[in-house]
């Protein structure tokens, strides 16, 4: 049996795929920004907040880190309505992504904060800055610079994990691909093409991150 690769139906539906890719980019981007904010706030709270708050954050992180994203998204979309929280699929997808990446970002940023030399904080204290000012003006930028690689690969990973949000009928790239392959029965070809599109997007995101790095963290490190 000889399998004939048929790309024509895939390319005929390219607009559909591009729309899906655009939604994937939007989902990732919004989730990334919100997740980063969650991460920064929680990391700050975790490195100095009152113990009960820290336990709560720990519990959140452990729960998210140790369960599959698929299960998390099921829960948010199908179970939360029982508690009266109802969201559209794309909103639920964003919420799930933020919840997920927020936990990872918190851990990464916390590690970054802890990697800052103690002397930096002491210098801030000696100058009379308060805790929030030290965090905001001294630690944050340096911390993000040290963990920037880890953070960006987490974000690329996030972008790739959006491929499972189609289970709750969100309309991302993977969902668009599924729709097309169901109609044209060229699953292999469709997946090959969208895999290529994901690759382009992740390389694009990596490039964008490098650009941001060059612009935002342009201060020289010690010789």
């Amino acid at each position, binding site marked *: 049996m000889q399998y004939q690769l048929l790309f024509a139906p895939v390319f005929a539906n390219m607009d559909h795929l591009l729309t899906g890719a655009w939604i994937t980019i939007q989902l990732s981007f919004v989730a990334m920004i919100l997740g980063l904010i969650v991460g920064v706030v929680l990391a700050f709270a975790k490195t100095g907040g009152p113990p009960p708050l820290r336990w709560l954050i720990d519990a959140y992180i452990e729960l998210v880190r140790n369960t599959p994203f698929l299960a998390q998204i099921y829960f948010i979309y199908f179970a939360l309505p029982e508690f009266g929280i109802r969201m559209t699929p794309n909103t639920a997808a964003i919420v799930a992504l933020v919840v997920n990446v927020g936990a990872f970002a918190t851990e990464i940023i916390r590690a970054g904060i802890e990697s800052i030399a103690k002397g930096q904080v002491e210098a801030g204290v000696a*100058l009379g800055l308060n805790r929030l000012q030290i965090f905001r003006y001294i630690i944050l930028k340096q911390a993000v*610079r040290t963990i920037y690689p880890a953070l960006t690969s987490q974000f690329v990973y996030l972008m790739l994990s959006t491929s499972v949000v189609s289970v709750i009928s969100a309309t991302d790239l993977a969902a668009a691909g599924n729709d097309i392959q169901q109609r044209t029965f060229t699953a292999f070809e469709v997946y090959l093409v969208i895999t290529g599109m994901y690759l382009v997007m992740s390389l694009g995101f990596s490039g964008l991150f490098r650009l941001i790095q060059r612009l935002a963290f342009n201060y020289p490190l010690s*010789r």
Partner: protein
Amino acid sequence: MENVEKYYGAFHALKAVNLTVRTGERIVLCGPSGSGKSTLIRCINQLEQVRSGRIVVDGIELTAGPKNVEAVRRNVGMVFQQFNLFPHMTVLENCTLAPMKVSGIAKAKAEETARKYLARVRIPEQAHKYPAQLSGGQQQRVAIARALCMNPRIMLFDEPTSSLDPEMVKEVLDTMIELANEGMTMLCVTHEMGFARQVADRVIFMDQGEIVEMGEPGTFFDNPREARSKAFLSQISH
């Protein structure tokens, strides 16, 4: 400073330390590694909390409550062995951060002050560089300028020259000597004996968390009373 006791866990780092520093006085602290010199001066601006005893700075009792700590920190400048400049800010930003955020001074005014002090430590032209672009000696002088920008009444130095290459030690010491000559109250941990002889009003020798000997530099160096001081002095001038 009265009867100050400091513990790190079970480790007794400062043992009943008593010390009074008068305005304008310049004190050099020395002693072997681990003797508690850093601990002592770090207690003065509460980088370390003491177990018991009283610390009064400029009439304000530090050990009495967090409000006082704030007030004292504004009056105490500190320079560290590792410079601890903020690497992500230019020299100028390093110097203006605290005045702007802590004292609420306007940016233009803060920069003016910063430039004044940078000129005083002889590096006015480096204002827009980042710390990593400066030599160690220049960095340490920026650190001194940064502390001065808060108009402190006392300056603390913790081995300001010991992580510098030999060529750069002098430029930093010169800056410190100038500062001393202008009448700044200074407490300085250092092993630079030349500096101590030249500017110190008193030299304090510590060992194992205690003040072992205290005296004029001339007397101390040439004629130490205690056996421990003698042993130490002979070691560092081998």
